[in-house]
């Protein structure tokens, strides 16, 4: 069981602040690091894996700083986002080299065992430059897992992986988390994180925006004011009906459109058809105008 603790960690590159005063604790189980592109996820993972010194603050694994501490890699398995450039090696040679670098007592057996875990036994004899994106991702995971680490750090592990392999990878990570390992993966896709992680940390623009289990994060996101655009048989009458509802924060008539800002998405979605029916109004169109993840993140930061 291992715990990564970030204590008031900041990292800047010249004038650019990539990570701004982040404090978090990552314990056993699967944790998702969620944030839009450019939020500082890679920078955070680089600091957690000892490949970047924090400009200020502390990054520690089980109480010991990670930076310039090569012994930490006995516990850490790292799956970087970077492409493998060992195209001249076969999958088996690459994983074996990783096992050898860890000086595993039975490197050959460990290699075969982990190739089986990631379902790569059959193509393991082929050169890496013939692998598909999903296979490369799996061989990277195999290389990171071959020494049976207690911490697994993955940077955007599902990027470019097809849906079937994604399921397979998710099962694998879930299993590793259930075994008591500390698994942290980054992603910019909410659904991905939601499906896999028990615990979610949200970062936006280098700041730690939210933290909690996926239910709490989902709640935060659905409870934010949401913008809807409505078309109906009588927009003005509908506006009068809607503004009387506690779930509606603001209504605006703009041309032949009705813009509604909703606070409580649940009761609004539930109530709307009935309100329209009671007042003999016909709804032609209802569309969310800012469902993008960016706006969700923007809300979390502004909160």
């Amino acid at each position, binding site marked *: 069981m291992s715990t990564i603790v970030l204590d008031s960690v900041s990292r800047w*590159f010249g004038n650019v602040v*990539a990570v701004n005063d982040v404090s978090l604790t990552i314990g056993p189980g699967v944790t998702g690091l969620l944030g839009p*592109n*450019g*939020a*500082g*996820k*890679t*920078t955070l993972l*680089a600091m957690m*894996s*000892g*490949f*970047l*010194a924090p400009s200020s603050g502390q990054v520690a694994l089980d109480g010991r700083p990670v930076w*310039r501490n*090569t*012994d*930490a*890699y*006995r516990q*850490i*398995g*790292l799956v*970087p*986002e*970077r*492409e*493998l*450039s*060992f*195209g*001249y*090696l076969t999958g088996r040679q690459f994983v074996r*080299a*990783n096992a*050898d*670098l*860890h000086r595993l007592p039975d490197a050959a057996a460990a290699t075969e065992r982990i190739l089986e875990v990631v379902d790569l036994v059959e193509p393991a004899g082929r050169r890496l430059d013939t692998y598909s994106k999903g296979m490369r991702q799996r061989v990277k995971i195999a*290389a*990171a897992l071959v020494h049976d680490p207690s911490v697994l750090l993955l940077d955007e592990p599902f990027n470019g992986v097809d849906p079937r392999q994604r399921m397979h990878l998710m099962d694998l990570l879930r299993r590793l988390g259930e075994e008591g390992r500390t698994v942290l993966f980054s992603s910019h896709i909410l659904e991905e994180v939601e499906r896999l992680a028990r615990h979610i940390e949200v970062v936006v623009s280098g700041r730690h925006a939210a933290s909690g289990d996926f239910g709490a994060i989902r709640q935060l996101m659905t409870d934010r004011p949401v913008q809807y655009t409505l078309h109906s048989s009588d927009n003005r009458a509908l506006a009068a009906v809607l503004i009387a509802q506690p779930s509606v924060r603001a209504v605006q008539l703009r041309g032949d459109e009705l813009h509604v800002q909703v606070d409580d998405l649940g009761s609004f979605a539930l109530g709307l058809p009935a309100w329209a029916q009671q007042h003999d109004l016909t709804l032609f169109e209802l569309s969310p105008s800012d469902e993008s993840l960016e706006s969700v993140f923007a809300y979390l930061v502004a909160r």
Partner: protein
Amino acid sequence: MNPTIVKLALQALLGRRRFWLLLAFPILLVGLVAVLAAFTDAEAAWTVLPALGYPLVLPLVAILAASSVLGPEIDDGSIVYLLAKPVNRHSVAVSKWLVALVATLVAGSLPLLLAGLFTGDIARAVALSVAAVVAGTTYSALFLAISAVTRHAVVASLMFVLIWEGLLGNLFSGVAWLSVGQWGLRIGHEISDQLPDPANLVWACLASLVVTVGGVWFAGDRLRSFSLRGED
């Protein structure tokens, strides 16, 4: 030293197209000297070696070898796969250097000996190859250190060889005191006085040793601080 790193560095060296370039230079050099020795006289053939073989082919081979074992992995960041391991960074640097060194000796120093033998004077050929072993060793450590610091290692190393040692070294005799090639020649001079005597012998030995040890140590130290920069 770490046998796995040595093996991977060898595979990196042999697996790249650059390797054939590395072999082409010495083969052309030996061929040229052999042809000149056969069709003109041995002395004319010999002049190729101190003018072209030693000051140009040897450092070029060292640059290609040193930059092949370290440069590309640092450039594309894939060295994290080697460094995310409980392996001492200095042993990574030493292992990579050993591979670069062997490649430099085989493809740089050995051809100089062969080419020298074609020109008849055995003592002279041995002296030049001793100089080439010393300089090749120092060059490979120096260029490895340069590969660990900058993405433009090949250009920076070429500038050192062509501008500092070549151009300025020919204009100002004092540059010999800070020239890897001249240190090697000074040591070779002890075997045959056909080689020049540009600097103090003790200085040449010490300087070669310091640059070699310092270069490899520095490369290891840079690896300890290797940082992964995200795209964001």
